[in-house]
């Protein structure tokens, strides 16, 4: 009995921690109506500012996360899947009870710039404040003005579906210390105006790096791997490296290719697929030409990458690729060509295509399984589509044909195995 006497210490500590947590959470609940700075209040009503904000909100693709499937735009409700659980995107229409109707600009600024919620709580970085912190105050005012001009939708926010301990917001304090540094984009005077605009859009509102970089164990991004490609957790697509230089994911892409894929969804070097097709449809196709050129200028300057380590084949993939070769001739060559060159503007090439040769094989596998349409854009309103092969090819056949296209022509990527195909066959599509 006596030996167990010390047990009360951790128990008491636990009670103290829980009580502190409860007190903090209650403190966060105190909702006050924030008074608006009169100068900003006038700006928020300016139609020119609202129009600018609408364009910027489109550039940031806010609507994609803040709209549930089939729901009212910006009324929230979409559950964003993360390895730690689901995080619902909130209602950002100007409803007083469930949206941002009682917010003042400074509340919005703190969220965008510092990742701090209206009640002082740290926000989960599923809201990409890690990128949005680079947005200027003037641009943030315009976006806020636009959001405040939206039709009011009363839609209560869904609750967090994070697992313990990730559902304890205070764990974010440590995360922020490691992975987050607040700061508006600082122009590089040695670069052109266009380059700086591109960098601002890519690193800030465009929040490209949130997908196009590998995340660590705690879901954070390291500055030194910016835009070098990464697997999108839960959604299971691979967002390729964006360097156009030696060993880059977009090696050999021209300025026009970058502009084409963002504007039309398709370029001579490849097409936007998976989540990027959505980004093109909702966001980049609406960008002005000078902004698209600016983005291209910036991406073209991303440095060359280290040569990939030789693929250490754990098994001899030649028989698999040989089998894939005959499936390719039978199923794929009619459209993509025996030489994998595709048909310009119609069917993307597979030779040298970043989505085919990305490190994981996820993209090629899922495209073979799902087929489908590329983005439907003003520049490509009736795109050609690809048949889904999930119903026609076995896991082994898909592994074979994907291995073949990843190793044919100039492609030198790793093989894909049957068990990988089995996994991706059942990946949720939303």
């Amino acid at each position, binding site marked *: 009995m006596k030996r167990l006497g010390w047990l009360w210490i951790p128990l008491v500590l636990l009670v103290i921690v829980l009580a502190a947590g409860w007190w903090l959470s209650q403190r966060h609940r105190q909702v006050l109506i924030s008074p608006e700075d009169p100068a900003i209040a006038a700006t928020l009503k300016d139609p020119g500012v609202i129009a600018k904000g609408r364009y910027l909100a489109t550039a940031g693709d806010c609507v994609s996360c803040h709209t549930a*499937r*089939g729901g009212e735009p910006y009324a929230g409700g979409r559950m964003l899947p993360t390895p730690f659980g689901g995080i619902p995107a909130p209602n950002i229409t100007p409803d007083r009870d469930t949206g941002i109707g009682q917010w003042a600009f400074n509340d919005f600024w703190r969220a965008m710039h510092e990742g701090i919620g209206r009640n002082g709580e740290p926000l989960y970085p599923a809201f990409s404040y890690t990128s949005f912190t680079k947005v200027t105050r003037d641009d943030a005012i315009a976006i806020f003005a636009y959001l405040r001009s939206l039709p009011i939708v009363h839609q209560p926010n869904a609750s967090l579906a994070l697992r313990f301990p990730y559902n304890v917001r205070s764990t974010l304090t440590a995360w922020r210390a490691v992975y987050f540094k607040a700061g508006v984009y600082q122009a590089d005077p040695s670069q052109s105006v266009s380059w700086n605009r591109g960098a601002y859009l890519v690193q800030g509102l465009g929040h490209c790096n949130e997908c196009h970089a590998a995340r660590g164990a705690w879901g954070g991004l390291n500055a030194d791997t910016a835009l070098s490609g990464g697997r999108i957790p839960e959604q299971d697509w691979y967002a390729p490296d964006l360097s156009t230089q030696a060993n880059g994911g977009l090696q050999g892409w021209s300025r026009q290719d970058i502009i084409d894929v963002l504007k039309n969804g398709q370029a001579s070097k490849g097409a936007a697929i998976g989540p990027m*097709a*959505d980004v093109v*449809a909702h966001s980049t196709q609406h960008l002005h030409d000078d902004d698209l050129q600016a983005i291209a200028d910036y991406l073209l300057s991303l440095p060359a990458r280290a040569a990939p380590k030789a693929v250490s084949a754990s098994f001899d993939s030649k028989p698999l690729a040989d089998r894939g070769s005959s499936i390719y001739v039978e199923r794929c*060559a*009619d*459209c*993509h*060509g*025996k*030489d994998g*060159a595709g*048909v*310009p503007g*119609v*069917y993307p090439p597979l030779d040298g295509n970043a989505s085919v040769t990305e490190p994981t094989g996820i993209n090629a596998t899922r495209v073979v399984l*799902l*087929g*489908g*349409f*590329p*983005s*439907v854009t003003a520049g490509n*309103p*009736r*795109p*050609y*589509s*690809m*048949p*889904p092969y*999930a*119903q*026609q090819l076995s896991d082994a056949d898909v592994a074979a044909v994907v291995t073949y296209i990843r190793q044919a022509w100039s492609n030198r990527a790793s093989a894909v195995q049957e068990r990988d195909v089995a996994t991706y066959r059942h990946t*949720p*599509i*939303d």
Partner: protein
Amino acid sequence: MSTRLRWVLPFAGLLGCAVAHADQPTVPNTLQQRIAACTTCHGVHGEGSSGSGFFPRLAGKPAGYLVSQMQNFQHGLRNYAPMEYTVRLLTPDYMHEIAEYFSAQQVPYERKPVPNLAPSSLQRGEQLVTAGDPSRKIPPCQACHGKQLTGTEPSVPGLVGLPYDYISSQLGSWRTGTRASAVPDCMAEIANRLAPVDITAVSAWLASRDVPADTHPQPAGSIAPPLRCGVLQTSGGGT
């Protein structure tokens, strides 16, 4: 036609140049070629998958119905992952064009296999289709889907020539909420009033029925829906 041709010709010219290039494939500039993602499962003319296949016939169904189904998949009212993925990025214009294409197709129906059921079960199926079951407040299918069960313009689909597996799984989906339509969702109500054996009976009877000579949907406005239906109200069909 001539104006259309004027648009197509320059592209056809471009295509000609493309063809001259090495062994590049020739790509017909047709909608049929563009919608390979649809026709792989539903057939080039929307005839549905052959054999006992699950994929439903699209040919000849009212275009309004086909558009609203694509929208329902986009909005998550109907759940079937391959369809949800395929249509997710389609614009209203493109969806209309695709729907018009399938709606205009006239292809022969193929008889699908039907499970062997007792005559009493098939009789029950026929009764539900033609007379309904007033004791359970189930209206006859014919009341909306047409006297000949070929559908009603612009938004009620025909039920003839559909595979047993497809019909029974749709009725099941309405009960489990993986298929829904605009509220008030009258088909969900009806599916929930059916007993499980009724679903088998009605699906089998419908799938075993001969297809009438004229498979065109009934004209719009030719039905008086027995229930309030969101689909019929929004599209102005049936009333």
